[in-house]
């Protein structure tokens, strides 16, 4: 099977009916995408599939063939992307287990909406459960990242 992940085409030995999450974490070794519930509830396994945020635990590998996949490992090019840096600086990550999925959901938002308000940010990450932060600092980090991406002060 061929999967296009983070801009690279991979040949993988995997059943097309395997969950995409298992193929990413197993044969592809991309363990940044996490499993928290296995039923599309926690959002820890959020990836972009052709630009849309989806739960990798609910997508079968065969369904992702021919699509462009982005995981947390694809966010940083050399140095941290502004979104990642803001999560670190502003307290957006605590235990970190929800962070990869949260970043991907935020990335999907910021690609569509350059200057989201609080309500739009909260809605965009409502499928990503965080048990540590209370969300305020995640919201702040995403808002901050939007400013940095727009060329504003970091």
């Amino acid at each position, binding site marked *: 099977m061929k999967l296009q992940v983070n801009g690279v085409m991979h040949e993988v030995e995997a059943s097309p009916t395997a969950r995409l999450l298992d193929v990413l974490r197993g044969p592809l070794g991309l363990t940044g995408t996490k499993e928290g519930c296995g039923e599309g*509830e926690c959002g820890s396994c959020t990836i972009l599939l052709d630009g849309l945020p989806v739960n990798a635990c609910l997508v079968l590998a065969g369904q992702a063939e021919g699509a462009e996949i982005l995981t947390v490992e694809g966010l940083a090019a050399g140095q941290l992307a502004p979104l990642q*840096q803001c999560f670190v600086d502003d307290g957006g990550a605590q235990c*970190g*287990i929800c962070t990869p999925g949260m970043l991907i959901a935020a990335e999907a938002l910021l690609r569509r909406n350059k200057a989201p308000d609080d309500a739009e940010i909260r809605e965009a990450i409502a499928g990503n459960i965080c*048990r540590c932060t209370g969300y305020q600092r995640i919201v702040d980090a995403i808002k901050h990242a939007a400013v940095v991406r727009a060329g504003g002060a970091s």
Partner: protein
Amino acid sequence: MIIGRSVPRIDGHAKVTGKAVYVDDLPPRPGELWGVTVRSPVAHGTLRGIELDPAFDWSDVTVVTAEDLVAMGVENLVALIEEDQPILATGVVRHVYEPVALVACADRDKAERARAAVKLLIDPLPAVLSLDEGTVVQKKYRIDRADVDAALAASEVVIEGTYRVHHQEQLYIEPQGVVASWHEGETPVVHVAGSLQCPYYVHKALKKAFHLVDDAAARVEQTVTGGGFGGKEEYPSMIGLHAALLARKSGRPVRLIYGRKEDIEATTKRHPAVCKVTLGCKRDGTFEAIKVDVVMDGGAYVTLTPVVLSRGTLHACGAYRFAHHRVESRAVATNTPPNGAFRGFGAPQTIWAVERHVDAVARALGRSPIDLRRQNLLQKGDLTSTGQVLDVSVGGQECLDAATKAADFDRRARDLEAWNAAEAAAGRRKRRGLGISTFMHGAGFTGSGEHRLKGKVQVDLERGGRLRVRSASTDIGQGTETIFQQIAAEAADLAFEDVSFENPDTSKVPDSGPTVASRTVMVVGSIVQKAAAAVASHVRAKAAPGESFATAGDRLLAAGDAETKCLVQYVPPQSRAFDDATYQGDAYPCYSWACDVAEVEVDLDTFETRVLRLFTAHDVGKAINPVLCAGQVEGGTLQAIGWAIHEAIVWRKDGSIANARMTNYIVPTSVDAPEFHTTLVEVPYPNGPGGAKGVGELPMDGGAPAVANAIEHALSADLRWGAGVLLPDLPLLPENVFERARRAEVVS
């Protein structure tokens, strides 16, 4: 100053790039097996036997039962406070989900099938499923100060109330799990790596069960841990033992990681409790006497219940001044999974009761909940229920002022009233309300705990003038690594980057005591400070004139200077000794204080509650890292809000859990969570690093009562409910508020 600066967390880079290695991210080891646990489906029963389905192919499956433990000479015991909990049940099962057998197989799917092929022969016995039916007392305490009976008899106003709270699941997003291996040899070595808070708890449990004498015979290592909140305090000992047993019998490494369902079902939860409060006061609202009767549900085994009950007992009189106190508490056994550590550790349960009761008193006296609190809040020089004189770091009043100021309370209350009136006039059904809670939380272990623990930290000089902090305090998200580096760098007068943090691994770090009880910064941090300062001043003392710190350090290392390492043991500050028999004396070195103001919106038809804004002020002594500290405050407060209005374990009549899924165990999402307005108040505690005291648990204590108070405020123009409070019990699920409201008189 490095202390007080929001240095970006040092594990942040790994966490935002996906490089942080959690237990499930560890690459499979050669020959590794997947372990699973066979559990009792019955709440209470006689275990007659275990049958392996003869139709199943067991050739590549390892099975461990209590009989194997006997054969292997393993003591069937999870070492904790009481020696009552077996590693695998034998003879009797005492709760649904109790581990009875273990299975491992290289093929994960087959291991799961093998689990179903183990048949447990159990004759059911009558089961006790709620604390109301519990008769077996696991522990009890009594505080009796001055003369409560006489004081109540003489009080102008005496109010009584009964308040209940429910289970809560920690719901860390990373389920529990470990990887274990067993190395046979002249001295066998067992190695457990996993998601855990307290490596030395697991270490102790392994040593005890396997009769290991040498500390090095058991090695326990923390992997990056995806949240704990107490849930990974004691339970990892169980999983660690299970995986180690499978590893020993199979001779292979074993990975034992729970799925979400199993994690919710089998692991510990917050203790349910019922508290009866009697409070006597003057007509002008001055509190005089309080009597609290507490019953907690310990579950099927004692585990940490005595300590949880202790903390609940010590917080049962709230943050208020009384001349007379009596608290009688007990924990009873039930046939439900053992309840255990969860942020707050017994305090949120009794603080719920006392805070709700203060609201009941305010209602009875026709007083505002704020004013009544302000009038009775403990001040410097006052005495607590244990007779402890509050002589340092008493910030309750400052917190009350800061939170109400941030909320602009009076103006906001007026605006809400106008808003509600406009809604009502338009025939709409939403109402808003404001609520408040004031609370304190004892920082560090209770009473003589730290004397017994003798927590240790070591700081080592390394090449290049760098320091390495070795402690068993784990970072489970709160930022221990970063904060310890800040404390050490400050103490040593080095740059933040010149300090590093050793991963908690029992082969590399001393036992600093567990990562619990809001003690990490205040207690362990204080010895990090001492050790770092000692090493640095030694290097500086030995440095030749003009010689740099790094050069001098390298020279001392090369010379084998012993004082380039410093091991410090914690010595609790002098205080009035705590008497475990009378529960009098200094219960905690100091207290952290807080005030929450919640603004809610309630739907008069559906009774859905939304917390719109949460203004909170927390007196933390000193915020070592304000961003991380506020993150603790907000995250803990949201857990409290979740406990109040969303979360509930749904028990079936057979003692099993009906909603062991994230779809049905409801924690708040980003759209459910309020906007937080957090103020960090700093009334320094002289013995904490930089003045810091504990913060981890405090935020869990006040969210629920503040929200309840706000809901009642929102409903007060439309409903009358007579004496007491409308909402004495958690959870405040819409269904429950609906039930309560239906019994109240509808005004509009």
